[in-house]
């Protein structure tokens, strides 16, 4: 009886260990997949950030700002003597 219990225990333990090993590997692949998806998302967001940075930079173009200020807002450049310290 003891011998049978030992064999049963031995086989069960091995089955559990094999299951755990397979489970570990599945988890690893799952996490690796998630990580790669996140990396892909980061790459997409970085690309988007780059595009937005370029657009922002284009909006900050000094020549355009100057034209807008002078034509639309009717602003004029001022001389140093017009500036007073309060």
């Amino acid at each position, binding site marked *: 009886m003891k011998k049978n219990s030992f064999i049963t225990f031995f086989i069960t333990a091995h089955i559990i260990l094999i299951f755990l090993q397979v489970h570990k590997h599945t988890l690893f*692949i799952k996490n*690796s997949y998630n990580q790669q998806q996140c990396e892909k998302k980061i790459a997409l967001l970085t*690309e988007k950030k780059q595009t937005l940075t370029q657009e922002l*930079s284009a909006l*900050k173009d000094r020549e355009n700002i100057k034209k807008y200020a002078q034509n639309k807002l009717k602003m004029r450049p001022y001389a*140093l003597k017009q*500036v*007073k310290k309060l």
Partner: protein
Amino acid sequence: MIQNFRFRSTIIFFFFTTLYALVGINLYVIQIKHHDFYKKLADQQYHVTITQTPSRGPIFDRTGGHYLAMNKDYIAAFILPTQLTDKKRTLHFLKKHFPHTIKRFAKNKDKHFMFIKRRLSPEEIAIINEEKNPDIFLLSEPGRYYPLASASPLIGLTSIDNKGLLGIELLYNNTLAGKPTTCHLEKDARSGYYYFKKETTVQGDIGHPLQLTIDADLQFLVQEAVQQTVEKFNAKEAAVIIMNPHNGEIVTMISYPYFDPNNAHTASSDNFKNKIITDAHELGSVMKVCAAIAALEEGVVTADELIDCKNSLTTQIDGRIINTVQAHGTIPFTDVIALSNNIGIAIVAKRLGTKLYDHYKQLGFGSKTNIKFPGENTGYLNPVENWSKQSIISLSYGYEVSITLLQLACAFCTIATGHKVIPTLILNSSAPKGADDKKLYSDATLNTIKEILEKTTLYGTARRAAIRGYRVMSKTGTANMLIDGKYNPEKNIYTCAGIVEKDTYQRVIITFVKEAQQKDIYASTVAVPLFESVAERMLIHDTIIS
């Protein structure tokens, strides 16, 4: 019945035995005999080595809020010449829209890959997309975009493969580009994108950003002033440099004409140079300041000493003819500089002799400034052993010595602080920068020369550079250009160099204009108004209000 059964069993037995034997042989062939071949095949399917190039570090101005160079993806179009499905249609399309590729196609028709064009314009991308030709592929490639064109001779640009070619992009290519990382990926045979395992075999480095000492806003404001001057005088070239004399930081650097770095293929190669650093000139009278500081330091003259300027436009010293623009009689040494009299400075320089050479050397002429910029010119300072009788006279008012505008700016930094200054373009760099501890000139000499320069601005040749409420110390120079071994009075360069001061605030400004088309004009009408305009813009920008 039993015999029949045995016979059939034997056949089945031998059939399966043969089958297993075949499987066994096959396994032997695959696993043992052709082991290396199949292992290699499997490795090719399951193991991939990739090299990831990091994105290039951006370049910022001194505020850190403005990009001077940023990354931008460009689109390239390519074909696979050996795998064209509709060759006739593809070639017809290429002939119509990209005719230059036809010749290349004839040469590369047996190749597996050929670029149609890299860095496509939005219009070209639209044409390709409209065509919907399955033989034409689009590819995204990293590239650079430069928002401030006026900084292009300084920032430089990258090649089509995103490697630094000129300027800062070349100088700091390793820092900006980083190092590629090599990874080993374990994948299944079918998945093209995902992998099981990733192993880094060569650890790379990211592309580090760079922060320059340049102020993008001030650069833009100064560029406007330069452009106005160039248009007004129809000049061939112009340049402005603003430096902080206390730490050697270059705040603004304009070399006009500059190229459009985003369309560099259309630019003239001459405009790629940062002429402030790469071109040396004989700058004329602006160098009188350097002769004067040498004379004052050596004690061969005092500011009040009366110098006989012969009251003539032409005179002879040691049999050498000296011309000056305006005749003056006996005037104090201060006025010799303020009124820019060639005869007066030549008389004083004669007293200095070869010591003038030592002082010019001390001020950095004839040697590199240590800015470590590609193509820096050392200029030329005629060595004493090559001197003729004319040399001491010529050197006193800026001939026989050619210097870069950066060297002149550094010399004025020395006048402003008394220390030798190493110019720098990189903010918070570890490289040695700023003022040297050792003072090159005594305080008395520095104070006297500053007073002389202030008087030059108040009533001398640089009158128009005066700004009420600020101490402006400047000197002008108009020099004939040396063309084919002869000085051409029709072609001149105009310079104004000075220091703008308000309490502890100090900036050195150099303005330079080359070959203005109008005749009989001097630096006082060309370079000095530009100096004043630049100084005003700078003071407003820096909110230095009196």
